[in-house]
């Protein structure tokens, strides 16, 4: 203050006091020889510069603000133009006034003073910037959201909208401002009936409504009242969202649910819905067709294993059910899951289930669609049986064809070769005994062929027809067969001897008994290389496991049967694993006939341990006892 000189018209002390008390920092610059010098400053400036300003007192302007020519320019400008003005500016002073923003007022005081009042607005500026930033962010948020936001006055005049609202009608935001909202969206002359904005203003509470526009779109509209400081409603905010797709999806879902319900109610198949814990949540009326000993009300709420009575007799199915359910929960589908269930306590049926995971009102449920396939299953079983029969029939036909092809060709080979040789021998007329042998072979082969045809026919009858069992005198039949064979093989030296103490032997048999004896005896004759064919038949009685049998032993002096063949010779047939050739059908037929009689047959060596000495065919036939 010491440098304040003359030129001041105000009372110095008053001026000083007033100047020093100005709450904003002030400088006084004095012009001298075309330069400005700091001649005074107030307390506020001293405070702001933390006392540093004191060291600048009396210094020339450019020395103080050497880095800031703007303030020098403004002080010069003020002085030169004798102009008072304000300006926002940023400047630095010393170490304590840095990067601060001021509103500087430049006042010219004639003749050579310029007073600069500086109001520090750095804080306000920061607040202003923050507010501006926040405003921008809010604007971005409002512009980004897909809902339409419309700010309107109490008469539905649009004051502001976001971009989404404008885009929904292909207009710019400024085109909407000042228009009535009902003119823009529903294209009406008056507010919509039930308008949630009007309602919100009226009730002072948020209100919502769904409305559709003429273009077919559906909207969810929410109205919010806007209050002033005195709690008066002064405006309203409308937030609108297009829900056309949601509504359509809801509509479709409703339709689907209705259709499902209709299907569920009217399906001819039983439909079970169980929760993921296995509890039956619902089942349709058709369920009564497959489970009739529970009422539907009884079943609901029970575990499916109880409903299907799996714990009673079908416990082994439970793990299978669990597996299928887990599969379905994993998102896979299960089809044709076949299992039996009890329709009533006494009746079991077969069902086929399709299992899938469905979602009803946010709840995951496992759906079983169950179809009664008992009839199909029975048909399938019958078909299987029929297939087995067909396969057996096919195998039998193949077997007979095979036997015929082999045995008949061998017979023909015998006859053909014998005749060829006979022709040669007849021309030579040198070896009549050989001619006799050849004629004998031809006769044998004719008997063999006849026997083969007869056996095939009888075998076929045994397999296809049912024969009754009656009381037969086996001894009588055996004697008849013996006589027939002796006649048939009259040119061979065949001797058949029957040893029995009985005059009559009654067995349970039938007319096939003669085929049985004939085949055993023909084999004994055929498979014999001896000039004298000897067959001894021993007849005795035998008790075996409380049953009485007649035992017949046919002992021959033929070629015999090796041990490895002793069982196989009876196995020849269309089901046999190994084809045993060269034995004809005789023993196969014998075995079948004995099965029919519940008798037995086996073969042993005539002399134990040496099969080459001949065989002993032993048969047992149930005996008819005198007392019945």
């Amino acid at each position: 203050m010491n440098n304040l000189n003359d030129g001041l018209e105000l009372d110095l002390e008053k001026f000083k006091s007033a100047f020093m008390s100005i709450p904003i920092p002030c400088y006084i610059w004095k012009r001298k020889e075309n330069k400005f010098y700091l001649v005074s400053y107030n307390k506020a400036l001293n405070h702001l510069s933390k006392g540093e300003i004191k060291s600048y007192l009396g210094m020339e302007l450019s020395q103080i603000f050497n880095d800031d020519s703007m303030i020098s320019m403004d002080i010069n400008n003020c002085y030169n133009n004798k102009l008072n003005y304000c300006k926002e500016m940023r400047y630095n002073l010393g170490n304590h006034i840095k990067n601060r923003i001021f509103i500087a007022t430049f006042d010219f005081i004639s003749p050579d003073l310029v007073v600069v009042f500086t109001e520090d607005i750095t804080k306000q500026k920061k607040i202003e910037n923050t507010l501006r930033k926040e405003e921008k962010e809010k604007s971005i948020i409002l512009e980004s959201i897909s809902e339409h936001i419309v700010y309107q006055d109490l008469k539905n005049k649009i004051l502001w909208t976001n971009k989404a609202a404008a885009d929904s009608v292909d207009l710019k935001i400024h085109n909407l401002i000042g228009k009535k909202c009902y003119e823009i969206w529903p294209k009406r002359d008056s507010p919509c009936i039930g308008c949630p904005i009007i309602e919100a203003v009226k009730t002072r509470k948020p209100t919502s409504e769904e409305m559709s526009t003429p273009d077919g779109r559906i909207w969810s509209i929410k109205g919010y009242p806007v209050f002033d400081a005195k709690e008066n409603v002064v405006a309203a905010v409308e937030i609108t969202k297009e829900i056309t797709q949601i509504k359509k999806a809801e509509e479709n879902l409703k339709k689907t649910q209705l259709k499902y319900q209709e299907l569920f109610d009217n399906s001819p198949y039983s439909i079970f819905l169980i929760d993921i814990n296995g509890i039956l949540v619902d089942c349709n009326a058709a369920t009564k067709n497959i489970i009739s000993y529970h009422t539907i009300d009884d079943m609901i709420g029970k575990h499916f294993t109880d409903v299907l009575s799996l714990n009673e007799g079908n416990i082994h199915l439970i793990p299978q059910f669990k597996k299928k359910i887990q599969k379905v929960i994993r998102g896979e589908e299960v089809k044709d899951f076949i299992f039996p269930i009890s329709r009533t306590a006494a009746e079991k049926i077969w069902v086929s289930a399709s299992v899938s995971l469905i979602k009803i009102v946010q709840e995951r449920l496992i759906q079983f669609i169950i179809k009664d396939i008992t009839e199909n299953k029975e048909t399938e079983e019958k078909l299987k049986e029929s297939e087995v029969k067909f396969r057996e029939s096919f195998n039998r036909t193949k077997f007979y064809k095979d036997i015929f092809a082999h045995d008949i060709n061998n017979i023909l080979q015998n006859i053909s070769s014998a005749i060829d040789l006979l022709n040669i021998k007849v021309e030579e007329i040198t070896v009549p005994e050989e001619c006799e042998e050849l004629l004998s072979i031809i006769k044998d082969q004719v008997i063999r062929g006849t026997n083969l045809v007869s056996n095939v026919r009888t075998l076929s009858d045994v397999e296809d027809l049912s024969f009754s069992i009656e009381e037969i005198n086996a001894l009588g039949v055996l004697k008849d067969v013996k006589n027939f064979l002796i006649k048939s093989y009259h040119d061979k030296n065949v001797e058949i001897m029957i040893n029995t103490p009985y005059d009559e032997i009654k067995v349970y048999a039938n007319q096939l008994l003669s085929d049985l004896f004939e085949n055993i005896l023909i084999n004994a004759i055929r498979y014999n290389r001896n000039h004298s064919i000897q067959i001894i038949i021993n007849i005795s009685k035998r008790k075996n496991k409380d049953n009485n049998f007649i035992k017949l032993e046919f002992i021959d002096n033929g070629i015999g049967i090796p041990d490895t063949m002793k069982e196989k010779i009876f196995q020849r047939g269309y089901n046999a694993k190994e084809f045993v050739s060269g034995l004809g059908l005789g023993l196969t037929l014998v075995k079948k006939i004995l099965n029919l009689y519940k008798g037995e047959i086996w073969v042993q060596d005539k002399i134990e341990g040496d099969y080459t000495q001949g065989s002993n065919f032993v048969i047992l036939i149930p005996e008819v006892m005198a007392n019945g």
Partner: protein
Amino acid sequence: MVKILIVEDDLSLQRLYEMMLTTFGFEVVGKASNGKDAVDIFLSMPFKPDIILMDHRMPLKNGIDASIEILKIKRHTKIIFTSADKSIASKALSVGATSFIEKPFAITTLHQEIERVYNDS
């Protein structure tokens, strides 16, 4: 003289082959009624036959299996198959049989076949 081993389970046919072969001047050196006997007889022979007349379907061992074993014993043994089952012809030839005659055949056919097979060597 051509030496022949007859393998045939049909005894009367076996006898007829024997009569035929001797009539044609061949020598029957052995007879077997099944494949197993055939192998045993062949193995026991100090002088092997020139030709084996072999049936296929026989008890104990069939003609194919018997031929395989015989050919293992003597590699170039000539085997003439005689069978009513034509379906085994290719199998018989593939295991090493020299020829196949389907039954029934005329005895002249057998005669010619034996001559052909024997002279081929």
